[in-house]
């Protein structure tokens, strides 16, 4: 199976014979389909329904990606090996997500909690809901100084559901950020 297919001899795609010649209109039709999907993916979220947004925005994104891959990148006539290789790389990323989500994506878990993330979320809401009030008098001027910067460590280790104060710190907390 190791025929010395010479790459310079005009384009021989992987199927070995000259690529099936599609007329230009074939590609333009696919392009038009992609545009329609784009419009849908923009219109969908405007209706405000959470599930609909997810389906239209991300579902269509996956469909568009597959269309571009299959028709524009000619993966539909490419050797199967390429599909499997790209899929394997994608699976590696999914594997990374599965192993990491339990720690990075949650506020608390078995015997641990992230008090700073709770504080950060509250501060963020305040900083940005405050942002909404600004909406009135100025085109969403956002005071970047009010960025949520919650020094951690010496915070009261309270969680959203009730907390206890513990004062009296023997050590001055090191300034956590670049002096901001």
């Amino acid at each position: 199976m190791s025929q010395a297919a010479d790459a310079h001899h005009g384009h021989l795609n992987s199927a070995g014979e000259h690529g099936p010649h599609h007329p230009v209109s074939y590609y333009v039709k696919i392009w038009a389909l992609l545009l329609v999907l784009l419009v849908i993916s923009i219109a969908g979220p405007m209706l405000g329904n959470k599930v609909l947004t997810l389906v239209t925005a991300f579902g269509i994104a996956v469909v568009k990606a597959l269309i571009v891959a299959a028709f524009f990148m000619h993966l539909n006539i490419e050797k199967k090996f390429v599909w499997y290789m790209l899929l394997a790389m994608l699976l590696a990323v999914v594997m990374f997500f599965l192993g990491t989500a339990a720690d990075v994506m949650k506020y608390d878990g078995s015997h641990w909690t992230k008090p700073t993330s709770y504080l950060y979320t509250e501060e963020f809401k305040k900083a940005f809901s405050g942002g909404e009030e600004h909406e009135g008098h100025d085109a969403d001027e956002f005071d970047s100084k009010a960025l949520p910067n919650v020094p951690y460590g010496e915070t009261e280790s309270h969680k959203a559901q009730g907390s206890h104060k513990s004062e009296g710190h023997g050590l001055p907390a090191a300034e956590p950020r670049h002096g901001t």
Partner: protein
Amino acid sequence: MLNWIILEASSYAAQIDNVILIIALLGGFWLFAAEFVLFYFVAKYRRSRSPKALHITGYDHEHNKWIHWSHYAVIACDIVILVFAARAWYHVKQSVPEHVDEEIRIVGHQWAWEFVHPGPDGKLGTPDDIDVVDELHVVVNKTYKFHLESADVLHSFSIPRFRLKQDAVPGREIDGWFTPTVAGTFDVPCSQMCGLGHGIMGGRIFVETEDEHRKWLESATGKTAAIPANGTGKLASTQGGN
């Protein structure tokens, strides 16, 4: 297994040592078996003693059955190790004993441990808490639940004698527990690189008897410690520990 190198001083130290012992036995067996076979082959099949080599593809069952059987045995050993390791892990990290005598809060700073003792009233978060740097005073045979935090970078709260280790992650509050079983003072090193002073960041844990602890409480708070006689004071109000 490690008792002869570093004495066990906490309730679950023996269990962790057993896990190490089992791995040492199983792993050690396979290590010496493989090394012996290797050295035996090297000695037996030296060119001077066997000028002609055999031609073995290794796919025929007659030869690779040696590999497959030893292979299945290794898998069996792995399963045994897994069971013991998972049990020790669950006991130490995934569960806290029902009866917790006192709770302490540990905050790792760049290059010192800050221990917040509950003070005479036995409850954390009350004004009489005693906040001490690099010295943790506990009573022997009492169960302590700790809340571990870090104020700046990653540190790792480690008491080798207890076989206890838990990283202090900034932004997180991690719970754990220990029950000292041997009185004495032991090292509390930081075992996660935390900058220049990582090497000098060493606290001490003082595992005291009841009266020694009471004497310390008095010296620390300056008042007579009203610690209940049998030391089983009302359970500290844990703040929503899960």
